[in-house]
């Protein structure tokens, strides 16, 4: 395998010297087939979508905290949906729906996995580019198209999709049931169908690249954990996304062509519909067959990034590399057989609920192993508190906090009373929302110099961004558990119709204030990010003293990544602070890391990891 890859690589190399073709603006910046440019395109598009998604959350947080108040800001952003500054209930549902959709798919799937898989897979395995640059380009542009359609749906007359991001039929199938299920829903489904195509093309490319294009010496057991995470993420995506596609297709059929896959016995708006024999529960199964693996599609790349950043900045090998790989594989496998825990009270057979409780609590085991291994990686380290490292530590913190409440939600008996309450909202925002965003931010801070030709982000602004975000995130989502355990259902436009919930009002205000602070400080990040692209200080070639191959590639982005031959690999990617045989100094005197492309030295022991 490796030898084959090498032959291929050498050919590539000759190709590069064969012809220095001129790049036009269009081929370099727009329809680029270079993985580094595509990763930047993914990142910028993802960030843009993220800004919209997060601003939506600001709007509905304001509504939840002060339901009786009139906000001019509502009128400005929502127009006819907020006459005199009073938010319309249907646009509230649209906001939570599109917020969820954008954050899960467009930011945390495409923005996170798309960005870093594209950037790091070729660079860290020692390849000149993805297996297919063309498919990679098509993948991005399909993602771009789906983003445009999703944004376009916001301007539809009857409003965008508003049946929740899970779009359960019949609500999502019947325009009579909610205005957003008209053209808005059609556009939502179209957008997601295109998104799935984009995701599949990307994932197949990642898989093929990791399997075939590793440089000489880069065995699977020498891969950095980032690559393992991206590789397995892509496999889960290929397995589960097509199922969502089929669900979307069947929903389109039900909506437009009169089939009854998900609909039966419906009386709405004064008439009986002809639909007979379908079941919404079937849709729930299909949806969550993707929906649950999806949260691991979101979190695994973040885990990979965190492992890598943490080892580098601890100046220590990641603790238990094999266990980390095994747990990624275990999580990936289990993630496809736990979807039913979203459906304990959907009306499916209670015995099925028991099975899913069992598999769900099993998945806590590899997750716990990962958390303990990260903590042990810090132990006796020499921690370099770069911004990326801070976000990695915070990732472990929120992953633990959010993961632990999963023990309650995964237990079918306990789920009965917290299902669909704010307890769930608090749980998944901490464990996948905030954690994955921390992974994304850690990745951005860490690999910014690689993405933007040696420029670095401002450290002080990074610290301000981190500390305010870390405090704010807990400030929003920790109190939210109380709201859920008080019995308040999610997706309520206002709680004022239930005097019983009156005493939750001040918790809502506290959460919203934390949300405003946290969202505001993201402006510091955006400023730092965009400013540093153009004016960031240029750092050294390998600013974090990392061992992985990407830091041996040229600072200046060239097609093919390495000016000379592709580096060969002689060791795993975690030789940090390794001592020589006499234990007098590091293997390379005065340097606490050994890059992967440095051959085995006479004064060191070879270790089998």
């Amino acid at each position: 395998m490796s030898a084959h890859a090498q032959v291929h690589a050498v050919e590539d190399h000759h190709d590069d010297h064969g012809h220095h073709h001129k790049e036009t603006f269009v081929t370099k910046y727009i329809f680029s087939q270079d993985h580094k440019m595509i990763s930047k395109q993914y990142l910028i598009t993802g960030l843009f979508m993220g800004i919209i998604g997060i601003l939506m959350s600001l709007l509905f947080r304001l509504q939840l905290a002060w339901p009786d108040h009139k906000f001019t800001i509502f009128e400005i952003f929502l127009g006819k949906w907020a006459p005199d500054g009073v938010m319309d209930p249907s646009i509230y549902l649209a906001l939570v729906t599109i917020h969820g959709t954008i954050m899960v798919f467009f930011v945390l799937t495409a923005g996170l996995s798309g960005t870093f898989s594209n950037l790091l897979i070729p660079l860290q395995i020692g390849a000149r580019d993805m297996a297919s640059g063309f498919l990679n380009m098509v993948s991005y542009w399909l993602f771009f198209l789906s983003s445009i359609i999703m944004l376009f749906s916001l301007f539809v007359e009857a409003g965008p999709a508003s049946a929740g991001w899970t779009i359960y039929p019949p609500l999502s199938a019947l325009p009579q049931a909610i205005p957003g299920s008209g053209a808005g829903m059609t556009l939502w489904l179209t957008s997601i169908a295109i998104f799935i195509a984009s995701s599949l093309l990307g994932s197949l490319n990642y898989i093929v690249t990791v399997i075939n294009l590793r440089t000489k010496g880069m065995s699977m057991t020498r891969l950095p954990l980032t690559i393992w995470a991206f590789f397995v993420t892509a496999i889960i995506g290929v397995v589960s996304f097509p199922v969502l596609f089929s669900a979307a297709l069947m929903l389109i059929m039900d909506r437009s062509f009169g089939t009854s896959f998900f609909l039966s016995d419906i009386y709405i708006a004064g008439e009986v519909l002809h639909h007979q024999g379908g079941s919404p529960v079937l849709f729930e199964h299909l949806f969550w067959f993707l929906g649950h693996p999806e949260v691991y599609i979101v979190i695994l790349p973040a885990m990979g990034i965190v492992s890598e950043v943490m080892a580098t900045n601890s100046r220590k090998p990641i603790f238990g590399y094999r266990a980390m790989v095994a747990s990624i594989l275990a999580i990936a496998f289990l993630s496809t057989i736990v979807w039913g825990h979203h459906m304990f009270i959907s009306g499916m057979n209670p015995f099925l609920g028991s099975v899913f409780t069992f598999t769900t609590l099993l998945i806590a085991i590899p997750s716990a192993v990962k958390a303990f291994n990260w903590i042990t990686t810090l132990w006796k380290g020499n921690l370099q508190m770069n911004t990326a490292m801070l976000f990695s530590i915070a990732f472990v913190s929120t992953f633990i906090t959010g993961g632990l409440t999963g023990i309650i939600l995964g237990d079918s008996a306990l789920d009965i009373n917290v299902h669909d309450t704010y307890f769930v909202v608090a749980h998944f925002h901490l464990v996948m929302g905030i954690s994955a965003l921390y992974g994304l931010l850690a990745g951005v801070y860490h690999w910014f110099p690689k993405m933007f030709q040696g420029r670095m982000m401002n450290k002080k602004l990074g610290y301000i961004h981190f500390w305010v975000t870390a405090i704010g995130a807990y400030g929003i989502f920790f109190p939210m558990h109380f709201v859920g355990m008080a019995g308040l259902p999610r997706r309520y436009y206002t709680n004022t119709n239930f005097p019983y919930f009156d005493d939750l009002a001040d918790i809502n205000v506290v959460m919203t204030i934390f949300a405003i602070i946290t969202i505001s400080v993201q402006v510091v990040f955006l400023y730092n990010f965009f400013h540093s692209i153009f004016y960031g200080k240029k750092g050294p070639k390998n600013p974090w003293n990392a061992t992985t191959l990407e830091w041996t590639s040229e600072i200046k982005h060239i097609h093919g990544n390495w000016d000379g031959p592709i580096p060969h690999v002689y060791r795993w990617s975690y030789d940090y602070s390794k001592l020589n045989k006499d234990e007098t100094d590091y293997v390379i005197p005065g340097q606490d890391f050994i890059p992967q492309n440095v051959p085995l030295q006479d004064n060191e022991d070879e270790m089998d990891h």
Partner: protein
Amino acid sequence: MTAFLVILVIILFGISVWQMNRIFQLAKVKPSTHSEIASDKDNNMNGYLMMGFLAFMYILTIVTFWLWGDVLLPESGSEHGARIDNLMLISMIVIFFVGILTQWLLHYFAFVYRGNKTKRATFYADNDKLEFIWTIIPVIVLAGLIIYGLFTWTDIMNVDKDDDPLVVELYAQQFNWKARYGGNDNTLGEANVRLIEGINQLGVDPADPNGQDDKVVTELHLPVGRKVLFKMRSQDVLHSAFMPHFRAQMNCVPGMITQFAFTPTITTVEMRQNDKVVEKVARINKIRTDKNIALTAAGQETLDPYEFDYLLLCNKICGVSHYNMQMKIIVESEEDYKAWLAEQPTLAEQLSK
């Protein structure tokens, strides 16, 4: 149009800030390189902040419990609910123990091992024994929770027909609830949305003899101490019948009948005298009185004082008025329940009118 102008202004403002910054940048002298990589000073500062953050998390936990510990649901009004609460308590103790411990380790290590040029990290890549320990401990703890949880779940979900439960249909539609009692025979008549006509809003089959004595109501009354088997239907979209005080919830699915059963153990009147509920109601009424002062000043309608009642809420997004789809539940003595039910007209009576 206004929206467009506002966006334009924001963009232009952003550009001007950017340009201004550019001028400042150009005016500034470039400092030495590497200044964006954490120095020992940064490591030190952030190490201490990590301990500060740990303190923040602990304080946040304590303060939130102190402030809002009393908003949580009162004691369960149903028999099985006590078991759920017990399991919840055990899980919470485990969670808090593990959470406090691991967060401490994480942040304490981040503080103690903060970087320093003179220090050297320990090359420590593996320890099979250690990893085995922290694989096996979660396995044991989770196995315990799973077993307890599954026994509880099975007991709740498997309804024993020998208990002779009271059969009640919960009927969901956008955006209200109806309940149908089986009448004297405690058997619900067949129903389908295709039979909905006029006053027969639940589509009960008029030809089914079991349906003749059914009673359709908009307020749910339950006798205390008797098992109630709810049969749930929905006529339009998914709804979820959520009765938080009874630790009960089940989705209502168009096209199928779902079910959930529980035994109410505390009457509404008794629950109103529960210490936690009395405190909560007093607090809510204080909030409402305070609001009323402002409302009166503004010349608007004032809020009624609040009295505790069990609630049935919709807990699955079902449309625009999802936030206000509720029904009152009254748990009362067997006699009161029978007296109330006797006053309700049967379906046959309603249809013959």
